[in-house]
Every structure is written in C-alpha cells, then in structure tokens.
C-alpha cells in the first residue's frame, strides 16, 4: 500500500483521535510535484471507503469545528467558494452545490475534493485554509443545505 494511504485510512478509523496534523503533514510532505497523484489516490481511497461506510450505515467520526470557526467557514464558502459556485451555491464555472445537486454524493468524496481539489478542473485544493475535519464539516453542511451568513446589522 502506498504510504500516503496510511494516514488517510487512519483518519477514517472509528477510534482515531487527535492526529489530524499528521494527516496534513503526510499529504504536504509528499511535495507539490506529486500532489495531483496523491490527490487522485486519496479521492479513490476515500470514495471507496465512503461506499463501504455508507453500505454499513456508518459515518466517519470527525471533530466539529468551534462555533466561531464554523462562522468563518460559512463565510468562506459563501464568499470565496462563491466566486465560482455562486454565493447561493447554484453554480457558475463550478457546479451547483445545493443539496439537490449533491444528492447521492459520498461525504468523504466531497471532503476529499474540498481538501485536495480535483485535478484537471479549476477546483483547487483548500488544504492551506482548512483541515480535513473542517472540509468534512463543510461537506456535511452542503449536503443538508448550507447555512446562510447572518445578516449584517446596519453600520
């Protein structure tokens, strides 16, 4: 098994706790030259395990971000992901990210795309700006209907 799969599979382990930084380091340490290949392998591995997890009715555990961080992630998705996917996530140069559009897509595959990008498309990996756990949280929110940003009170 390629060494890179080890941390990915550990991440999926139901008993894992507190080793998120290792995953980040493992993925980054491979170097940018091989990043696409790593991403592809990760995506396949994650998707495969996600199917298995779905079949068993299980969901992978992950750390829920703090409320403050959730708020930052909501803003990031609406504003920055919104550049390509639309602020209302109805799509643009990137596909729609509404619950209807994402129906049937495995969460782990979505998290992997957010974290590592999708080679051959304009979708970049956002691993410099969020953790894999946070990517998973974002994927879950997308699948169930993404939160709105709180309305701004008048200046």
């Amino acid at each position, binding site marked *: 098994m390629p060494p890179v799969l080890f941390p990915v599979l550990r991440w999926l382990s139901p008993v894992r706790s507190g080793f998120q930084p290792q995953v980040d380091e493992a993925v980054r340490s491979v170097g940018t030259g091989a990043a696409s290949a790593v991403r592809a392998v990760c995506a396949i591995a994650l998707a495969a395990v996600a199917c298995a997890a779905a079949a068993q009715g299980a969901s992978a555990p992950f750390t829920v971000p703090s409320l403050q961080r959730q708020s930052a992630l909501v803003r990031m998705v609406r504003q920055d992901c919104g550049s390509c996917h639309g602020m209302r996530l109805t799509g643009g140069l990137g596909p729609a990210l509404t619950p209807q559009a994402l129906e049937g897509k495995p969460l782990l595959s979505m998290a992997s795309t957010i974290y590592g990008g999708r080679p051959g498309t304009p979708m970049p990996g956002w691993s410099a700006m969020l953790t894999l756990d946070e990517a998973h949280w974002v994927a879950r929110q997308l699948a169930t209907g993404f939160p709105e940003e709180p309305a*701004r009170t008048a200046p």
Partner: protein
Amino acid sequence: MAASPLWASGCAAVAQQADTHGGAAGDMRGTGDLGVVIQRARGAITVVNTSHRALLGEVAGLGDLSHASVVFSRDGRDAYVFGRDGGLTQVDLLRERIVRRVMQAGNSIGGAISADGTMVAAQNYVPGGVKVFDAKTLDLLADLPATYGNGRRSRVVGLVDLPQRRFAYSLFDAGAICIADCADPANPRVHTLEGIGRQPYDALVTPDGRYYIAGLFGEDGLAMVDLWEPQPVARRILAGYGRGQQPLPVYKMPHLRGWAVAGRHAYLPAIGRHEVLVVDTATWQEVGRIPVAGQPVFVMARPDGRQVWVNFAVPDYDQVQVIDTPSQRVVDTLRPGRAVLHMEFTPRGEAVWISCRDDHLVRIIDTATRQTLATLAVDAPSGIFFTARAQRMGF
C-alpha cells in the same frame, strides 16, 4: 396667453422630477460622472457620483448579484446589470429605479453592449450560449446557443463587443472562440475558431478592437485572434509561460475583461503564479514578468497607461499593488481594506475606487499620491462600474 399651458406642463414635469430625487435635484443632470457599486449579498446596486465622491441612492430587487457585471447605454443613463441567476435589469441612473427586467437564462456571467448602443448581449453558463436583446425594450433579438460536440452546450466566457454590431466570446468547455455578426439580428452569423486551447476562462479585446485575447486555464498560454485579418485565426501567445513548474492553487479565476493595455504592452495575470506577464503587442512576445504579492485577479491599466493596478485572490486580497509601466516595477503596495474585490478608475484616472468587501467600504485613492481621498460605507461592496465604460470598446 397661448404659452401658458405649455409653461404649466413644463413646470409639472420639473416638479415630478424633483420628487423622484428627494426635492434637491430638480436641476438637469448629466451622467458622465455617475457609476454603480454592486452590493452582491443584498441584490442591490448603489448609484454613485465620482465628482462628489458620494453615494446617491440604492436600487434593490436585482436578484443574485454574485459575479454581477454592468454595461452602460451610450448616453450613460441606463445601466444594464447582469445577475448570476440570469436576470438582466435595465436601471435608470438618474431616477434610480428599475426600467425593465427579464430573466433570460438559468446561470449567467455577464454581458456586453454593441458599439452602436442598440443591442445588449448576455453570456450564459446555463443554458450555454449568448442572447442578444434590444437595448431599449429588452426584447430578445437573437439566441446563439453554444453548441458543440454531441449537441452539448458550452459555458460562455469572455464576451466583448466589436465594431459593426459584432461580438466575440469564448467557449470554456469546447475550447473555441466565436465571432458573431449581428448586423441582421434575425439572421446572426457565427464564425467559430476551434482548437484554440483548453479551457478559455475569460478574454479581452484591445482598445482598438483589433486583437481578441482569451486566457487559458487548462494550459500555460493565451489564444490571440487578429480581427483585422480577412480570415481570422487563433494563435497561441506566451505558450508555456509556466516553464513546467507546478502551478499554485488558483482560489479565484483571474479576470481579463477590462483590458490592461498600456502603451505597446499588455499586462496579463499568470494562472497559478504570483506574476504579471508583460507582452509586446507589436510582436506578441513576452518581454517581462513582474513578481507580485499573490495570484492576480484584476490587472488594470490606469486610463493613461502610466500605471497598472493589481489585486489578488484570497488569502492575499487585503493588498493592492501598483506597477509603474515605464520601469515595469512594483512601486507601491497598499492595504486599502479587507477582501479587495474590484477596482475602477475615474474616467481620466486621477482616482481609483476600491471595494473592500469585509470592511464594508469603498476606498477612493489618489492614483498619483496614493493618499485616501474618501471612504464610503457600502454593505459588502463587490464590482464598481463607471459610466465612462459606455465610451470604451470591450467594456
């Protein structure tokens, strides 16, 4: 006494206009120093005056304005606002109200107005294609589906106006450039150049209307068409500018529309690199590359071409850099506010307006001294568009 009814009706008209402007503006007004700022989250635009550096009023009800863009009627009175949701809205800038609004597509990315001001064209992702409307009535004049391959439809990017009631645009999914002649809108003629390169993401036309340049996302290089040739063909320029290096992640697509042609040089954002590429428009050879603070999004020439201003994608979008074109060096790095999304020069370029989304303000900067002239409170501002665009090709 025969004149008195006329006098009376004239008076009533003035009174009516005064009402719409809150009583203060019964005077006749021009539109050459007006503009709009997009408040994308609110689906509204704010009408602004660039002489007084003032917010005049808000027009709401414009739908989803993420990635909204605006073109102006040639008299500078009407703004045509293209929304992400396919809405096309004609707004009267003097009365600050919607004149007409049509839902013309499912997902749209912007538009253009013909050189004679009679036709407005919208470029759409869903359904992929271009629709051409009567600028006065917003009646549909021509529908140009971007069909390719097995009847699929491509997303359209890089729509610009050309002389003689023509438009040029690029097909992101099909790797093609189209030149549409709408002289007779009932029988539009579309000439398609195929195989121009992978994933054109945006385009510009040079200020003389001669060269159309599409940036390629899928490969290092740009596709260029000399529209003055009898049989235009697409040529590759700046091929392989990345020199085989692994590109950085691109968190936001750069924009080419709103050309940065200064003197004989064009300044273009590199994809996946923290560089601005400089190309000689006489030879179309690269003559330099300027390291900058992040991934460039807008690379915009001040109208006189003496400076080029650059803003950046997240996470470097609190900075703006100023390139001095004679020396081709970055001469200033500014931090005008958090999340700089757009910049627009006043018609002669003595000032630039910069939208700072996360600080909820528009900062107006003197381009010579780089001192702040004013800040205006606007809720999450994004695009800024001034009516001087009405007089410029490709805007």
